[in-house]
């Protein structure tokens, strides 16, 4: 009975976590045994439909990878709040997507948007304390994750810089 449960419930879940992790950009460089080590430092969190994962302006301490379900990213303004369902919709994230990665390295970083589960969702959480503990006991694995994370953040920075340049050009053309 225990073996059956282990093989069919927990083992399947572990395999799914490993699969999602191995496909994620941050953990792509790790082999299966290293992924198993990293899995000890991760947290699986479950959310009900409409439940907030995090809220805009809250201090965030880490990132989430979607294991199951869909998550909406919303922006609140002075007139809108996520709790009253009046936040502005930005994007919908699906299985394997990651969010909040900046909070993994920035001290006291505040969330720039809110995240809300659209249906029953399971997320893999990876937080600053986990990364620090991982760096203490397995610095090589931690360094490879950090390298990938800096590549992701560098790409985001470059995309933002391009967007700003485009917007400046548009403003100049409008002014002209």
């Amino acid at each position, binding site marked *: 009975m225990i073996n059956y449960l282990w093989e069919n419930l927990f083992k399947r879940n572990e395999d799914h976590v490993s699969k999602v992790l191995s496909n994620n950009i941050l953990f792509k460089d790790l082999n299966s045994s290293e992924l198993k080590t990293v899995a000890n430092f991760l947290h699986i969190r479950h959310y009900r439909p409409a*439940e907030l994962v995090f809220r805009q302006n809250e201090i965030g301490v880490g990132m989430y990878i979607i294991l199951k379900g869909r998550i909406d990213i919303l922006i609140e303004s002075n007139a809108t709040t996520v*709790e009253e369902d009046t936040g502005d919709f930005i994007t919908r994230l699906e299985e394997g997507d990651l969010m909040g990665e900046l909070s993994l390295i920035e001290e006291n970083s505040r969330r720039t948007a809110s995240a809300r589960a659209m249906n029953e969702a399971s997320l893999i959480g990876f937080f600053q304390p986990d990364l620090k503990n991982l760096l203490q006991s397995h610095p090589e694995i931690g360094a490879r994750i950090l390298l990938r994370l800096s590549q992701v953040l560098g790409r985001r920075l470059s995309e933002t810089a391009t967007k700003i340049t485009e917007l400046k050009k548009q403003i100049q053309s409008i002014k002209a």
Partner: protein
Amino acid sequence: MNILIQQYRLKKIERLKLILFLSILAVALLILLKVDNMLLSFLLAFVLKYTLAPLINYAERKNIDRSHATLLVFVLFFSIIGALIYWALPYISVQLKAFHAELPRYIEGTRSLIFDIESRVEEVINTSVEFNLSAQAESLMVSWTKSLFEDLPNFLSKSLTTILLAPFFAYFLLKDSQSISKKLLDLVPNSFFELALSLQYQINEQMGQFIRARLLEAFIVGMLVWVGLSIIGFPFSHLLALFAALTNLIPYIGPIIGAIPALIIAMINGAGLLPVIGIYAFAQLIDMLFIIPLVVAKIVNLHPITVVVSIIIGAQLLGIVGMLVSIPAASMIKVTAQNVYHHLINFRA
């Protein structure tokens, strides 16, 4: 509207989960306080955990898996401690026996010293009021030495369970630290999860630094006192160094308490006071100039009033052991309170 109803239901579920989580914590705390030896076993286990954790992390960095690393560090640590006890115990027991035999002379000497001072004070201020400090000091010293020679061995033999349970708990706290903290955090409601994780990490880090720094400080001060007293051929150097190391764990007043027995012995034996004062002052100077700025400065500091109140409470609850445990316990409470307050103010915008 639908979302609003869902939000209301979710908040209700979150509140229930929080109550459940806090109830589990309260029950665990109650068990710690009510079951004999449990609190002390866990406190000692945490001291062991924080002392050995960096060594286990180091072994893990050398590609030894955590279970083997924990076992290896435990075997090495307890072998070294065992060897040290095996080496030092004969010396300490000889000195303890000699000290016990000479104790009446020291008590009498201290009483007459205080009596002398008292008479001089009475002459100067010319008062008819009798302080009778010497008699009070004598009865105090008799009760202290009684507690050292009779109550402490009794306490130690009664606390065999504590002594055996603490390494047992510490072993599993170290081996399974990640999974234990993960399982505890699994119980935390989603809306408090990041806050709880962050709090747990900060408290863990600060307590680890605090305990390691204090132990290192006590060890270095004890060694300096031992070397100094041995060089000048002062009696009971092992005992006095051990006492100085233990009392050094108590901030502010600990170093003073630690030096008093050596000063009394020097005065009664008619030996020079200056070399003894020099040795204790040198140990404190090294502590203040090198150890505190390097390892202790970053950790939590308690106000002198808090220190004294904590020691009194500790002594009332657990005697000598309570005095030693009171400061780490008070610091743990302070770190937790500080972090909870900081997070309550800053975590949510």
